Protein backbone atom coordinates (compact mmCIF):
# COMPACT_ATOMS: atom_id res chain seq x y z
CA UNK A 1 0.00 0.00 0.00
CA UNK A 2 1.34 3.41 -0.94
CA UNK A 3 1.60 6.03 1.78
CA UNK A 4 2.05 9.66 0.78
CA UNK A 5 3.04 12.60 2.94
CA UNK A 6 0.29 15.18 3.20
CA UNK A 7 1.29 18.39 1.39
CA UNK A 8 -1.53 20.45 2.89
CA UNK A 9 -1.98 22.42 6.08
CA UNK A 10 -3.92 19.40 7.40
CA UNK A 11 -7.03 21.46 8.05
CA UNK A 12 -9.27 18.91 6.37
CA UNK A 13 -9.64 15.15 7.05
CA UNK A 14 -7.09 12.90 5.33
CA UNK A 15 -9.96 10.88 3.89
CA UNK A 16 -11.42 12.45 0.75
CA UNK A 17 -14.50 14.42 1.61
CA UNK A 18 -17.84 13.96 -0.12
CA UNK A 19 -19.35 16.97 -1.81
CA UNK A 20 -21.83 18.67 0.50
CA UNK A 21 -25.40 17.49 0.08
CA UNK A 22 -27.89 20.09 -1.18
CA UNK A 23 -30.22 21.43 1.53
CA UNK A 24 -33.12 21.54 -0.89
CA UNK A 25 -33.89 19.94 -4.26
CA UNK A 26 -35.81 22.95 -5.60
CA UNK A 27 -34.45 24.07 -8.96
CA UNK A 28 -32.00 21.15 -9.23
CA UNK A 29 -31.93 18.52 -11.95
CA UNK A 30 -32.07 15.01 -10.55
CA UNK A 31 -30.60 12.10 -12.44
CA UNK A 32 -31.90 8.58 -11.89
CA UNK A 33 -29.30 5.97 -12.79
CA UNK A 34 -30.45 2.46 -13.51
CA UNK A 35 -27.47 0.15 -13.13
CA UNK A 36 -29.21 -2.57 -15.19
CA UNK A 37 -29.98 -4.82 -12.27
CA UNK A 38 -33.30 -6.61 -12.29
CA UNK A 39 -36.23 -4.53 -11.08
CA UNK A 40 -34.12 -1.46 -10.46
CA UNK A 41 -36.37 0.26 -12.99
CA UNK A 42 -39.43 -0.48 -10.83
CA UNK A 43 -37.89 1.43 -7.97
CA UNK A 44 -36.71 4.27 -10.20
CA UNK A 45 -40.12 4.57 -11.94
CA UNK A 46 -41.69 5.12 -8.51
CA UNK A 47 -39.07 7.70 -7.66
CA UNK A 48 -39.52 9.50 -10.96
CA UNK A 49 -43.28 9.72 -10.48
CA UNK A 50 -42.82 10.95 -6.93
CA UNK A 51 -40.20 13.59 -7.81
CA UNK A 52 -42.05 14.78 -10.91
CA UNK A 53 -45.22 15.24 -8.86
CA UNK A 54 -43.22 17.69 -6.74
CA UNK A 55 -42.38 19.67 -9.88
CA UNK A 56 -38.74 18.61 -9.98
CA UNK A 57 -36.73 18.01 -13.17
CA UNK A 58 -35.80 14.35 -13.54
CA UNK A 59 -33.57 12.69 -16.13
CA UNK A 60 -33.12 8.96 -16.60
CA UNK A 61 -29.84 7.14 -17.31
CA UNK A 62 -28.88 3.51 -17.64
CA UNK A 63 -25.60 1.67 -17.37
CA UNK A 64 -25.08 -1.10 -19.96
CA UNK A 65 -24.18 -3.58 -17.20
CA UNK A 66 -24.13 -3.53 -13.41
CA UNK A 67 -20.87 -5.52 -13.41
CA UNK A 68 -18.73 -2.64 -14.61
CA UNK A 69 -18.34 1.04 -13.81
CA UNK A 70 -20.40 3.43 -15.88
CA UNK A 71 -18.73 4.29 -19.23
CA UNK A 72 -16.87 7.58 -19.12
CA UNK A 73 -19.24 9.09 -21.67
CA UNK A 74 -22.22 8.31 -19.43
CA UNK A 75 -20.42 9.71 -16.35
CA UNK A 76 -19.64 12.93 -18.23
CA UNK A 77 -23.22 13.20 -19.47
CA UNK A 78 -24.61 12.88 -15.95
CA UNK A 79 -22.11 15.38 -14.53
CA UNK A 80 -23.00 17.87 -17.25
CA UNK A 81 -26.76 17.48 -16.96
CA UNK A 82 -27.50 16.81 -13.28
CA UNK A 83 -26.99 18.41 -9.91
CA UNK A 84 -27.86 15.24 -7.98
CA UNK A 85 -27.89 11.58 -9.00
CA UNK A 86 -29.81 8.75 -7.37
CA UNK A 87 -28.36 5.35 -8.18
CA UNK A 88 -30.60 2.29 -7.84
CA UNK A 89 -28.66 -0.58 -6.32
CA UNK A 90 -31.73 -2.68 -5.61
CA UNK A 91 -31.85 -6.37 -6.48
Amino acid at each position, binding site marked *: *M*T*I*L*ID*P*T*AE*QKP*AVRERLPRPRDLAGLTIGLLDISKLRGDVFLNELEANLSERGLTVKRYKKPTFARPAPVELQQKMVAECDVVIEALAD
Partner: protein
Amino acid sequence: MNYPSDGFVAVVKRDCPTCSMVVPVLRDLVNRQVSLITVTQDDPTFPSDLPQVIDDTTLERSFHWQIETVPTVMKIKNGRETDRIVGWHRQEWETFMGQSDLGQELIPMKPGCGAKNVEPGIAEELAILYGDTGMTARHVRLGEFEDDIEACFARGWSDGLPVVPPTAVRVYRMLQGTTRRPDEIIGVMPPNLAPVNVEKVAVNAVMAGCKPEYMPVVLAAVEAACEDPFNMHGILATTYHVGPVVVVNGPVTERINMNSGINALGQGNRANATIGRALQLVVRNVGGGVPGEIDRAAQGNPGKYTFCFAEREHDTEWEPLAAQLGVESGKSAVTLFCGSGVYPIMDQISRTPESLARSFAMTLRTVCHAKYAIVADAMLAVSPEHTRVFEQAGWSKQRLLQELEQLLLMPTAPLARGVDGNDEGMPDFVLGAPALPKFRPGGLLIVRVGGNAGMFSSVIAGWPASGATGSVPVTREVRS
Protein backbone atom coordinates in the same frame (compact mmCIF):
# COMPACT_ATOMS: atom_id res chain seq x y z
CA MET B 1 21.09 -0.19 20.14
CA ASN B 2 23.18 -2.31 22.52
CA TYR B 3 26.34 -4.01 21.36
CA PRO B 4 26.24 -7.78 21.52
CA SER B 5 29.02 -8.25 24.12
CA ASP B 6 32.50 -7.36 25.14
CA GLY B 7 35.10 -8.24 22.56
CA PHE B 8 34.97 -7.55 18.85
CA VAL B 9 32.19 -7.15 16.32
CA ALA B 10 32.97 -7.55 12.62
CA VAL B 11 30.43 -6.25 10.13
CA VAL B 12 30.66 -7.87 6.69
CA LYS B 13 28.69 -8.56 3.51
CA ARG B 14 29.05 -11.39 1.00
CA ASP B 15 29.02 -8.96 -1.89
CA CYS B 16 32.37 -7.51 -0.71
CA PRO B 17 35.55 -9.25 -1.99
CA THR B 18 37.57 -7.92 0.96
CA CYS B 19 35.05 -9.43 3.38
CA SER B 20 35.29 -12.82 1.64
CA MET B 21 39.05 -12.54 1.74
CA VAL B 22 39.20 -11.96 5.53
CA VAL B 23 36.82 -14.83 6.44
CA PRO B 24 39.80 -17.19 7.14
CA VAL B 25 41.19 -14.52 9.49
CA LEU B 26 37.85 -14.32 11.33
CA ARG B 27 37.85 -18.15 11.68
CA ASP B 28 41.43 -18.02 12.91
CA LEU B 29 40.50 -15.40 15.55
CA VAL B 30 37.60 -17.55 16.81
CA ASN B 31 39.94 -20.54 16.97
CA ARG B 32 42.33 -18.42 19.04
CA GLN B 33 39.47 -17.91 21.53
CA VAL B 34 39.09 -14.21 20.67
CA SER B 35 35.58 -13.03 21.59
CA LEU B 36 34.26 -12.17 18.14
CA ILE B 37 30.79 -11.78 16.75
CA THR B 38 30.26 -11.42 13.02
CA VAL B 39 27.34 -9.38 11.70
CA THR B 40 26.28 -10.01 8.12
CA GLN B 41 24.53 -7.39 6.03
CA ASP B 42 23.32 -9.25 2.96
CA ASP B 43 23.38 -13.04 3.46
CA PRO B 44 22.65 -14.80 6.75
CA THR B 45 24.66 -17.85 5.57
CA PHE B 46 27.78 -15.76 5.16
CA PRO B 47 30.37 -16.36 6.50
CA SER B 48 29.76 -20.07 7.00
CA ASP B 49 31.52 -22.10 9.67
CA LEU B 50 31.58 -19.28 12.23
CA PRO B 51 29.86 -19.87 15.57
CA GLN B 52 28.32 -16.47 16.06
CA VAL B 53 26.89 -14.79 12.97
CA ILE B 54 24.16 -12.25 13.51
CA ASP B 55 21.72 -11.65 10.69
CA ASP B 56 21.48 -7.92 10.03
CA THR B 57 19.81 -8.12 6.65
CA THR B 58 17.31 -5.56 7.95
CA LEU B 59 20.41 -3.34 8.38
CA GLU B 60 19.00 -1.92 11.60
CA ARG B 61 22.19 -2.61 13.55
CA SER B 62 24.39 -1.34 10.75
CA PHE B 63 22.31 1.83 10.61
CA HIS B 64 22.63 2.53 14.32
CA TRP B 65 26.34 1.67 14.31
CA GLN B 66 26.78 4.07 11.37
CA ILE B 67 28.76 1.50 9.38
CA GLU B 68 30.15 3.06 6.20
CA THR B 69 32.65 0.46 5.01
CA VAL B 70 32.82 -3.32 5.22
CA PRO B 71 34.57 -5.01 6.78
CA THR B 72 34.36 -2.85 9.88
CA VAL B 73 35.70 -4.28 13.12
CA MET B 74 34.60 -2.59 16.33
CA LYS B 75 36.20 -3.02 19.74
CA ILE B 76 33.59 -3.31 22.52
CA LYS B 77 34.21 -2.66 26.22
CA ASN B 78 31.35 -2.89 28.73
CA GLY B 79 28.82 -2.81 25.92
CA ARG B 80 30.25 0.32 24.33
CA GLU B 81 32.31 0.75 21.23
CA THR B 82 35.75 2.14 22.01
CA ASP B 83 37.38 1.98 18.59
CA ARG B 84 36.92 0.68 15.04
CA ILE B 85 38.95 -0.20 11.97
CA VAL B 86 37.83 -0.68 8.37
CA GLY B 87 39.08 -2.72 5.41
CA TRP B 88 41.99 -5.14 5.68
CA HIS B 89 45.42 -4.01 6.80
CA ARG B 90 47.37 -6.82 8.44
CA GLN B 91 49.44 -4.76 10.87
CA GLU B 92 46.46 -2.65 11.86
CA TRP B 93 44.35 -5.78 12.54
CA GLU B 94 47.17 -7.35 14.57
CA THR B 95 47.57 -4.28 16.75
CA PHE B 96 43.80 -3.79 17.07
CA MET B 97 43.20 -7.43 18.08
CA GLY B 98 46.38 -7.79 20.14
CA GLN B 99 47.36 -10.78 17.97
CA SER B 100 50.28 -11.65 15.76
CA ASP B 101 50.67 -13.48 12.46
CA LEU B 102 47.16 -12.81 11.20
CA GLY B 103 46.31 -13.67 7.60
CA GLN B 104 49.83 -14.54 6.55
CA GLU B 105 48.54 -16.00 3.29
CA LEU B 106 46.74 -12.76 2.37
CA ILE B 107 48.02 -9.68 0.65
CA PRO B 108 49.06 -7.15 3.32
CA MET B 109 46.36 -4.62 2.54
CA LYS B 110 43.03 -4.37 0.71
CA PRO B 111 40.53 -1.55 1.09
CA GLY B 112 36.98 -2.43 2.08
CA CYS B 113 33.73 -1.86 0.17
CA GLY B 114 30.87 0.53 0.76
CA ALA B 115 28.50 -0.82 3.41
CA LYS B 116 25.05 -1.87 2.25
CA ASN B 117 23.31 0.45 4.70
CA VAL B 118 24.78 3.55 3.05
CA GLU B 119 23.90 2.63 -0.52
CA PRO B 120 21.81 5.34 -2.19
CA GLY B 121 18.15 4.50 -1.79
CA ILE B 122 18.76 2.10 1.09
CA ALA B 123 20.20 4.82 3.36
CA GLU B 124 17.02 6.89 3.07
CA GLU B 125 14.75 3.90 3.72
CA LEU B 126 16.74 3.09 6.87
CA ALA B 127 16.66 6.68 8.09
CA ILE B 128 12.87 6.62 7.84
CA LEU B 129 12.53 3.18 9.45
CA TYR B 130 15.04 3.52 12.27
CA GLY B 131 16.21 7.12 12.46
CA ASP B 132 14.89 10.42 13.75
CA THR B 133 13.94 12.21 10.55
CA GLY B 134 12.07 14.98 12.34
CA MET B 135 9.21 14.50 9.88
CA THR B 136 5.78 14.93 11.45
CA ALA B 137 3.38 15.54 8.56
CA ARG B 138 0.28 13.40 8.32
CA HIS B 139 0.40 10.17 6.31
CA VAL B 140 -2.21 9.63 3.64
CA ARG B 141 -2.87 5.97 2.84
CA LEU B 142 -3.98 5.26 -0.68
CA GLY B 143 -6.32 2.49 -1.70
CA GLU B 144 -4.68 -0.80 -2.59
CA PHE B 145 -5.18 -0.35 -6.33
CA GLU B 146 -5.21 3.43 -6.40
CA ASP B 147 -2.80 5.03 -8.88
CA ASP B 148 -0.54 7.36 -6.92
CA ILE B 149 -0.42 10.17 -9.48
CA GLU B 150 -4.18 10.03 -9.99
CA ALA B 151 -4.59 10.05 -6.20
CA CYS B 152 -2.76 13.38 -6.01
CA PHE B 153 -5.12 14.84 -8.62
CA ALA B 154 -8.14 13.42 -6.83
CA ARG B 155 -7.11 14.99 -3.54
CA GLY B 156 -6.76 18.40 -5.13
CA TRP B 157 -2.99 18.66 -4.63
CA SER B 158 -2.13 19.37 -8.27
CA ASP B 159 -1.95 22.56 -10.30
CA GLY B 160 -3.41 20.65 -13.24
CA LEU B 161 -0.22 18.88 -14.29
CA PRO B 162 0.88 15.55 -12.84
CA VAL B 163 2.85 15.83 -9.60
CA VAL B 164 5.54 13.52 -8.26
CA PRO B 165 3.82 11.48 -5.51
CA PRO B 166 5.34 12.65 -2.20
CA THR B 167 6.47 9.42 -0.57
CA ALA B 168 8.34 9.52 2.75
CA VAL B 169 11.63 8.59 1.05
CA ARG B 170 11.32 11.37 -1.52
CA VAL B 171 10.43 13.93 1.13
CA TYR B 172 13.31 12.78 3.34
CA ARG B 173 15.72 13.13 0.40
CA MET B 174 14.36 16.61 -0.30
CA LEU B 175 14.97 17.57 3.33
CA GLN B 176 18.65 16.64 2.91
CA GLY B 177 18.90 19.70 0.64
CA THR B 178 18.71 22.05 3.61
CA THR B 179 20.33 22.25 7.03
CA ARG B 180 17.10 23.58 8.49
CA ARG B 181 15.01 21.34 10.74
CA PRO B 182 11.81 19.92 9.21
CA ASP B 183 9.69 21.48 11.95
CA GLU B 184 11.09 25.00 11.58
CA ILE B 185 8.26 27.41 10.78
CA ILE B 186 9.39 29.69 7.98
CA GLY B 187 6.27 31.80 7.63
CA VAL B 188 2.51 31.99 7.65
CA MET B 189 1.01 31.47 4.21
CA PRO B 190 -2.04 33.39 3.02
CA PRO B 191 -4.88 33.17 2.43
CA ASN B 192 -5.56 30.66 5.21
CA LEU B 193 -2.63 32.00 7.26
CA ALA B 194 -1.38 28.45 7.72
CA PRO B 195 2.03 28.05 9.33
CA VAL B 196 4.50 26.66 6.77
CA ASN B 197 7.32 24.49 8.06
CA VAL B 198 10.34 23.22 6.17
CA GLU B 199 8.80 19.75 5.84
CA LYS B 200 5.66 21.05 4.10
CA VAL B 201 7.86 22.99 1.68
CA ALA B 202 9.81 19.78 1.02
CA VAL B 203 6.61 17.79 0.34
CA ASN B 204 5.46 20.36 -2.22
CA ALA B 205 8.96 20.62 -3.70
CA VAL B 206 8.88 16.85 -4.27
CA MET B 207 5.53 17.16 -6.00
CA ALA B 208 6.83 20.01 -8.18
CA GLY B 209 9.77 17.87 -9.31
CA CYS B 210 12.59 19.72 -7.50
CA LYS B 211 16.00 18.26 -6.71
CA PRO B 212 17.07 18.50 -3.05
CA GLU B 213 19.70 21.11 -3.88
CA TYR B 214 16.93 23.51 -4.96
CA MET B 215 15.51 23.54 -1.43
CA PRO B 216 17.33 26.66 -0.20
CA VAL B 217 15.96 28.64 -3.15
CA VAL B 218 12.45 27.26 -2.71
CA LEU B 219 12.57 28.09 1.00
CA ALA B 220 13.67 31.66 0.29
CA ALA B 221 10.87 32.05 -2.26
CA VAL B 222 8.27 30.73 0.19
CA GLU B 223 9.60 33.02 2.93
CA ALA B 224 9.28 35.98 0.59
CA ALA B 225 5.72 35.01 -0.37
CA CYS B 226 4.78 34.95 3.33
CA GLU B 227 6.06 38.51 3.87
CA ASP B 228 3.24 40.94 4.46
CA PRO B 229 4.45 43.60 1.95
CA PHE B 230 4.27 41.04 -0.87
CA ASN B 231 0.58 40.58 -0.08
CA MET B 232 0.04 37.07 -1.39
CA HIS B 233 -3.56 37.22 -0.19
CA GLY B 234 -4.34 40.21 -2.39
CA ILE B 235 -2.48 38.71 -5.34
CA LEU B 236 -4.73 35.65 -5.11
CA ALA B 237 -7.96 37.48 -4.40
CA THR B 238 -7.63 40.02 -7.20
CA THR B 239 -9.45 39.43 -10.47
CA TYR B 240 -6.27 40.70 -12.22
CA HIS B 241 -3.84 38.34 -13.99
CA VAL B 242 -0.93 38.48 -11.59
CA GLY B 243 1.03 35.85 -9.69
CA PRO B 244 4.47 35.62 -8.11
CA VAL B 245 7.43 35.99 -10.49
CA VAL B 246 10.62 34.56 -8.95
CA VAL B 247 13.96 36.13 -9.91
CA VAL B 248 17.04 34.38 -8.56
CA ASN B 249 20.42 36.10 -8.24
CA GLY B 250 23.88 35.04 -7.12
CA PRO B 251 26.16 32.00 -7.15
CA VAL B 252 23.37 29.54 -6.33
CA THR B 253 21.97 29.97 -9.84
CA GLU B 254 25.05 28.38 -11.39
CA ARG B 255 25.35 25.75 -8.68
CA ILE B 256 21.88 24.40 -9.40
CA ASN B 257 22.17 25.03 -13.15
CA MET B 258 19.39 27.57 -13.50
CA ASN B 259 18.76 29.06 -16.91
CA SER B 260 19.45 32.76 -17.43
CA GLY B 261 20.20 32.37 -21.15
CA ILE B 262 18.31 31.04 -24.16
CA ASN B 263 14.58 30.76 -23.44
CA ALA B 264 15.12 31.55 -19.73
CA LEU B 265 11.56 32.81 -19.40
CA GLY B 266 10.28 29.70 -21.14
CA GLN B 267 10.27 25.97 -20.63
CA GLY B 268 13.03 23.39 -20.53
CA ASN B 269 15.13 23.97 -17.41
CA ARG B 270 14.35 21.80 -14.41
CA ALA B 271 15.40 24.29 -11.73
CA ASN B 272 13.55 27.24 -13.28
CA ALA B 273 10.44 25.16 -13.89
CA THR B 274 10.21 23.34 -10.58
CA ILE B 275 11.22 26.10 -8.15
CA GLY B 276 8.48 28.39 -9.42
CA ARG B 277 6.04 25.49 -9.41
CA ALA B 278 6.98 24.46 -5.86
CA LEU B 279 6.16 27.96 -4.62
CA GLN B 280 2.76 27.85 -6.32
CA LEU B 281 2.03 24.40 -4.88
CA VAL B 282 2.82 25.66 -1.36
CA VAL B 283 0.48 28.59 -1.95
CA ARG B 284 -2.20 26.17 -3.11
CA ASN B 285 -1.79 23.29 -0.71
CA VAL B 286 -0.60 24.95 2.49
CA GLY B 287 -2.03 28.42 2.01
CA GLY B 288 -5.28 27.27 0.41
CA GLY B 289 -4.96 29.60 -2.59
CA VAL B 290 -7.08 27.64 -5.05
CA PRO B 291 -8.42 29.04 -8.35
CA GLY B 292 -12.18 29.56 -8.19
CA GLU B 293 -11.99 29.80 -4.41
CA ILE B 294 -9.75 32.55 -3.03
CA ASP B 295 -7.88 32.87 -6.34
CA ARG B 296 -10.39 34.96 -8.29
CA ALA B 297 -8.34 35.86 -11.40
CA ALA B 298 -10.62 36.63 -14.34
CA GLN B 299 -8.07 35.24 -16.79
CA GLY B 300 -4.86 34.46 -14.91
CA ASN B 301 -1.66 33.91 -16.85
CA PRO B 302 0.42 30.85 -17.79
CA GLY B 303 3.13 31.98 -15.37
CA LYS B 304 0.87 30.93 -12.53
CA TYR B 305 2.00 27.35 -13.15
CA THR B 306 5.56 28.50 -12.67
CA PHE B 307 7.48 31.70 -13.38
CA CYS B 308 11.06 31.56 -12.20
CA PHE B 309 14.35 32.47 -13.83
CA ALA B 310 17.90 33.54 -13.03
CA GLU B 311 19.29 36.94 -13.96
CA ARG B 312 22.19 36.74 -16.43
CA GLU B 313 24.95 38.25 -14.31
CA HIS B 314 28.14 36.57 -15.44
CA ASP B 315 29.04 38.57 -18.56
CA THR B 316 27.99 42.11 -17.77
CA GLU B 317 28.93 45.13 -15.72
CA TRP B 318 25.29 45.73 -14.93
CA GLU B 319 24.42 45.46 -11.27
CA PRO B 320 22.23 42.46 -10.45
CA LEU B 321 18.68 43.07 -9.27
CA ALA B 322 19.40 41.68 -5.80
CA ALA B 323 22.30 44.12 -5.36
CA GLN B 324 20.01 46.99 -6.34
CA LEU B 325 17.61 45.80 -3.66
CA GLY B 326 20.30 45.74 -0.98
CA VAL B 327 21.77 42.22 -1.05
CA GLU B 328 25.52 42.03 -0.49
CA SER B 329 27.59 41.09 -3.53
CA GLY B 330 28.48 37.38 -3.68
CA LYS B 331 25.34 36.33 -1.84
CA SER B 332 22.40 34.60 -3.44
CA ALA B 333 18.89 35.94 -3.19
CA VAL B 334 15.36 35.46 -4.42
CA THR B 335 13.17 38.40 -5.40
CA LEU B 336 9.44 37.98 -5.74
CA PHE B 337 7.68 40.35 -8.08
CA CYS B 338 3.94 40.41 -8.51
CA GLY B 339 3.67 40.15 -12.27
CA SER B 340 1.70 38.82 -15.18
CA GLY B 341 2.84 37.48 -18.53
CA VAL B 342 5.71 38.44 -20.82
CA TYR B 343 5.06 41.23 -23.33
CA PRO B 344 7.75 41.55 -26.01
CA ILE B 345 9.60 44.70 -27.11
CA MET B 346 11.11 44.51 -30.60
CA ASP B 347 13.88 46.89 -31.61
CA GLN B 348 16.41 45.67 -34.17
CA ILE B 349 17.41 49.08 -35.44
CA SER B 350 18.53 51.19 -32.48
CA ARG B 351 22.26 51.32 -31.95
CA THR B 352 22.27 54.23 -29.50
CA PRO B 353 21.09 53.98 -25.91
CA GLU B 354 18.90 57.06 -26.35
CA SER B 355 16.93 55.46 -29.17
CA LEU B 356 16.64 52.03 -27.54
CA ALA B 357 15.53 53.55 -24.23
CA ARG B 358 12.73 55.27 -26.16
CA SER B 359 11.59 51.92 -27.57
CA PHE B 360 11.48 50.56 -24.05
CA ALA B 361 9.56 53.60 -22.81
CA MET B 362 6.98 53.35 -25.58
CA THR B 363 6.06 49.82 -24.52
CA LEU B 364 6.36 50.49 -20.78
CA ARG B 365 3.90 53.34 -21.20
CA THR B 366 1.20 50.82 -22.12
CA VAL B 367 1.48 48.78 -18.89
CA CYS B 368 -2.12 48.18 -17.74
CA HIS B 369 -3.36 50.96 -20.02
CA ALA B 370 -1.61 53.66 -22.04
CA LYS B 371 -3.59 56.30 -20.16
CA TYR B 372 -2.59 55.10 -16.68
CA ALA B 373 0.18 56.63 -14.58
CA ILE B 374 1.55 55.49 -11.17
CA VAL B 375 -0.75 52.50 -11.17
CA ALA B 376 1.20 49.30 -11.72
CA ASP B 377 4.85 48.35 -11.27
CA ALA B 378 6.75 46.67 -14.07
CA MET B 379 9.80 44.53 -14.59
CA LEU B 380 11.83 45.25 -17.70
CA ALA B 381 13.72 42.16 -18.89
CA VAL B 382 16.58 43.33 -21.11
CA SER B 383 18.22 40.85 -23.48
CA PRO B 384 22.04 40.64 -23.80
CA GLU B 385 22.04 42.16 -27.31
CA HIS B 386 20.04 45.13 -26.06
CA THR B 387 22.21 45.39 -22.94
CA ARG B 388 25.25 45.62 -25.21
CA VAL B 389 23.91 48.81 -26.82
CA PHE B 390 23.79 50.43 -23.38
CA GLU B 391 27.05 49.01 -22.08
CA GLN B 392 29.00 50.07 -25.16
CA ALA B 393 27.78 53.62 -24.55
CA GLY B 394 28.69 53.39 -20.87
CA TRP B 395 25.14 53.26 -19.57
CA SER B 396 24.73 51.35 -16.33
CA LYS B 397 21.43 49.76 -15.31
CA GLN B 398 20.97 52.68 -12.94
CA ARG B 399 21.54 55.17 -15.76
CA LEU B 400 18.93 53.42 -17.90
CA LEU B 401 16.47 53.59 -15.00
CA GLN B 402 17.09 57.34 -14.63
CA GLU B 403 16.67 57.97 -18.34
CA LEU B 404 13.49 55.90 -18.44
CA GLU B 405 12.14 57.89 -15.53
CA GLN B 406 12.46 61.04 -17.64
CA LEU B 407 11.04 59.38 -20.76
CA LEU B 408 8.11 58.07 -18.77
CA LEU B 409 6.99 61.42 -17.39
CA MET B 410 3.59 61.52 -19.03
CA PRO B 411 1.90 64.84 -19.80
CA THR B 412 -1.44 64.67 -18.04
CA ALA B 413 -3.79 66.17 -20.64
CA PRO B 414 -3.82 63.07 -22.91
CA LEU B 415 -4.43 60.86 -19.86
CA ALA B 416 -7.81 62.38 -19.04
CA ARG B 417 -10.92 60.26 -19.23
CA GLY B 418 -12.71 60.74 -22.52
CA VAL B 419 -9.61 61.78 -24.49
CA ASP B 420 -9.10 59.92 -27.78
CA GLY B 421 -12.66 58.70 -27.71
CA ASN B 422 -11.79 56.46 -24.79
CA ASP B 423 -13.61 56.61 -21.48
CA GLU B 424 -10.71 55.18 -19.48
CA GLY B 425 -7.96 57.33 -18.03
CA MET B 426 -6.80 59.09 -14.91
CA PRO B 427 -9.38 60.72 -12.65
CA ASP B 428 -9.65 64.52 -12.74
CA PHE B 429 -8.24 65.08 -9.26
CA VAL B 430 -4.74 63.91 -10.26
CA LEU B 431 -4.65 65.87 -13.49
CA GLY B 432 -3.62 69.20 -11.92
CA ALA B 433 0.09 68.42 -12.37
CA PRO B 434 1.56 69.03 -15.85
CA ALA B 435 2.96 65.49 -15.97
CA LEU B 436 2.78 62.25 -14.00
CA PRO B 437 5.39 59.50 -13.78
CA LYS B 438 4.37 56.16 -15.29
CA PHE B 439 5.77 54.33 -12.28
CA ARG B 440 5.95 55.05 -8.57
CA PRO B 441 9.51 55.54 -7.21
CA GLY B 442 11.06 52.05 -7.16
CA GLY B 443 8.20 50.69 -9.24
CA LEU B 444 10.31 49.83 -12.27
CA LEU B 445 12.76 46.94 -11.93
CA ILE B 446 15.32 45.95 -14.55
CA VAL B 447 16.78 42.48 -15.03
CA ARG B 448 19.12 41.20 -17.70
CA VAL B 449 18.15 37.85 -19.12
CA GLY B 450 18.19 35.85 -22.34
CA GLY B 451 20.33 34.20 -24.99
CA ASN B 452 23.14 35.83 -26.95
CA ALA B 453 21.15 36.52 -30.08
CA GLY B 454 17.97 38.51 -30.47
CA MET B 455 17.31 42.23 -30.17
CA PHE B 456 14.14 41.54 -28.25
CA SER B 457 13.46 42.44 -24.66
CA SER B 458 10.24 42.25 -22.69
CA VAL B 459 8.01 43.79 -20.10
CA ILE B 460 6.55 41.78 -17.25
CA ALA B 461 3.71 44.03 -16.16
CA GLY B 462 2.77 44.32 -12.50
CA TRP B 463 -0.46 44.67 -10.64
CA PRO B 464 -2.60 47.84 -10.68
CA ALA B 465 -2.35 47.64 -6.88
CA SER B 466 1.41 48.10 -6.69
CA GLY B 467 3.26 49.68 -3.81
CA ALA B 468 2.40 49.92 -0.13
CA THR B 469 -1.34 49.65 -0.78
CA GLY B 470 -0.92 46.48 -2.83
CA SER B 471 2.22 44.46 -3.42
CA VAL B 472 5.86 45.48 -3.28
CA PRO B 473 8.72 43.27 -4.48
CA VAL B 474 10.30 41.29 -1.64
CA THR B 475 13.87 40.01 -1.61
CA ARG B 476 15.14 37.21 0.64
CA GLU B 477 18.67 35.95 0.92
CA VAL B 478 19.14 32.25 0.11
CA ARG B 479 20.39 30.35 3.16
CA SER B 480 21.59 26.76 3.25
